[in-house]
């Protein structure tokens, strides 16, 4: 059923009339044109669609629109501020922590979610938190290093 859903998207108010049972992923990608959030599995099993909803990393492919009403949603497009890359984004670049890059937005957003609640995670905490995000190219070792670097520099900033 269509209803008006209002939320904050990347720091700005957003409001749209939408079937509230639709998943956030498709609304982001096609209704709102934010294609940085990727489809990978559709069942919350790969993490390519990870976004932040009110401070927590969520799988947008299984998150209904009604669940984001009134919440703050951050996507990969909202991470850089004033053209300045977020420390996680910088660290991913510096560590070559990606190959095909398709899982990268989800990796960064999930890591961002970790640093919001745990600004200085141990290596095993990083691995545990990231374990459900899949990368087929095998950039894992560098992704862990990049998260460590970003955490050292900025913590949850």
């Amino acid at each position, binding site marked *: 059923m269509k209803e008006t859903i209002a939320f904050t998207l990347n720091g700005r108010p957003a409001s749209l009339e939408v079937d509230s049972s639709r998943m956030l992923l498709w609304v982001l*990608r096609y209704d709102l044109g934010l*294609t940085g959030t*990727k489809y990978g599995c559709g069942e919350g099993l790969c993490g390519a669609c990870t976004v932040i909803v009110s401070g927590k990393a969520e799988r947008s492919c299984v998150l209904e629109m009604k669940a984001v009403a009134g919440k703050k949603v951050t996507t990969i497009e909202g991470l850089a501020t004033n053209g300045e890359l977020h420390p996680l984004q910088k660290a991913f670049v510096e560590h070559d922590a990606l*190959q095909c*890059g398709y899982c*990268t937005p989800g990796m960064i957003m999930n890591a961002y979610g970790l640093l919001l609640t745990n600004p200085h995670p141990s290596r095993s905490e990083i691995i545990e938190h990231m374990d459900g995000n899949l990368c087929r190219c095998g950039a894992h070792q560098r992704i862990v290093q990049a998260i460590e670097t970003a955490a050292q520099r900025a913590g949850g900033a």
Partner: protein
Amino acid sequence: MRREYTGQGTVYEDHLKLDFSAATQAGPSLPLDRRQFLQLLGGGIIVCFTVPDSLGAQEGERRRGMGQQLPQDFNAFLRIAEDGRVSGFTGKVEYGQGIITSMAQILAEELDVPLDSVDMVMGDTDLCPWDMGTFGTMSTRIFGPALRAAAAEARAVLVGLAAEQLQAPKERLRTKAGAVYDEAGQKRISYAELAKGQMILRHLKGVAPKPVSEDTLIGKSVLRRDAAAKVTGQAKYAGDIKVPAMLHARILRPPVHGAGLIHADTSGARAIEGAQVIEDGDLIAVLHPLPDMAERALAKIRAEFDRPAPTVDDRTIFDHLLKAAPQGQTVAQGGSLEEGRKAARHIFDQTYLNSYVSHAPIETHTALAKIEGNKLTLWASTQTPFALKEAAASLLGFPAQNVRVITPFIGGAFGGKSNNQQAMEAVRLAKLAGKPVQVVWTRAEEFFYDTFRPAAIVKIQAGATEAGLITFWDYGVYWAGERGAPQFYNILNHRTVSYGSGWGSTPGSHPFATGPWRAPGNNTNTFARESHIDTLAAKVGMDPVEFRLNNLTDPRMRRVLQAAAKTFGWSPAKAPSRRGFGVACGTDAGTYVAHMAEVAVDKNTGNIKVKRVVCAQEMGLCVNPEGARLQLEGGITMGLGYALSEEVRFKGGEILDSNFDTYTIPHFSRLPQIETVILDAKDSPFQGGGEPPIICMGGAIANAVFDATGARLLQLPMTLERVREALFKRES
């Protein structure tokens, strides 16, 4: 050094004899005429160059059996625009392997321009020179020299032009950072100024590239040039492309391979607002402006299929494949097996198996087709944009030059994105609907239509003397193909026979599609060979590394083995030493690799914990060492999957795995400590980088498990159940 075999080819190029006809069935792409090309590009300087004969011959040789030739007069690999920026053109595509960076390095190096001024244009069939496809680890070793030759000739042409403009003898001129300098006269002219408004068609034959000793960019590690776009979500993949009025498609699929549609009631789908149902023969699809609404509408279709009774499953497949195997082809042969048997003190027979494995890229197959009048534009995740162009043109009855395939970034491929089924579906639906149509396969479709790495069998009989010399080697591989099959040890009496294609299937063989999977065939062959070599070493009572060196004279292989052993800290011991150390080595795409692994095996659960992997690779002249390390780490990590957990479960034509919950690819927590060594080989030509580092993972881990437990794993993947079974068998 290339080793010749008495069989049909060399050890490295054998995969190229496999049949690409399905992917490249149409004729060669027509080169654009110069006027069309300039219209597409805007102004700038076009450098025509001729492919050096040696490269042309090499290319022709590599393309045998594929019904395709490189166009003889393909025009441009590069353009220098009026603002001084340089575009490099390649039909190769970027799916993570990093050639968007390394090719720019090659071009910048040879042309003498700053790396930052180079942009690569990739996989666009209107702009780029024809290409067979991005596979076989050929981008750097085959395309690299051609690109370098183009740049060398371009630079020489520019120097000639500068000599005229500066009125200085050519011999006095030097190039640097996009300009030509006359040091004596203290004069300078930039490439941009030379190119200004001019089109130059000058051929200079026989221009040699710079000597390697003068390279400053090739061999230097540079960061990925696509990273900034990828970390911000700005990088575009095929699914991120939008055009006005486009519709999203969801297609009705059969529940099992081989099923036929009896009846479909589409009324429920038609009732969904905005949904359009297409029914065209065997194709039933729902189109909708939103993909998730198309999915909902598809779910409303009631369809009945007749399901053929399953005849094979993931357990009986090996017996079935052995029975279905055609006559073998001898790939390599020498000496007398009979003499070898007589000379052996220990003779050992074994059969090795591996299951079907999925490519499972995180980006599913995606395409967007837009037809305007008699022109088609296609954006697709594909490893073969030029083959797609021909196929799409043929489907629509358009002349090939009216079809443009644009390949955005690809979210992983690994050999699985060469068939273009999803793109042909998009074309067909766009034609039927009269609107642009995007097809994005669901994860279940991705597993269902994947061209799996084939299940395969290897049977080996071999023998050795008491002193540890291998006296004969009798090797048969079924359904994996010959890539990586010919062994490289010093064995006088040997025979290698390949039964059945490496990836195509014949009727009655595989119950679904199979295809090339990262280093096709070589994972199967290297697992079997290196397991068997290890077994011989154990029978003779020698350390596995020492046994290999004892039977090796090839200096490149000895070098990678010794380098891996040094980094790993290998000390000689007879297996099983209980340390959990394993070694394997191999060759692929002209490159030599050796891997060492350390494992711990939980004897109760059967869990293999891979603690550490070292990989040493000698890949000729390495363009971007850090980029190559990424490939090594990627190969090791992806290789853990086929070694430990990945196998497609099926019953007849029904694929039982449809998502990542049951098909387990490597996770962060599975990750070993990884160390990579790239051996310096600056004086050798470019070799392959992306496929070789995966080939040893099955063998190195299986050998480490034997070293830890004394149990020999004979089937990949080494699941908990198979490890427990092997441990039980060893004890009883």
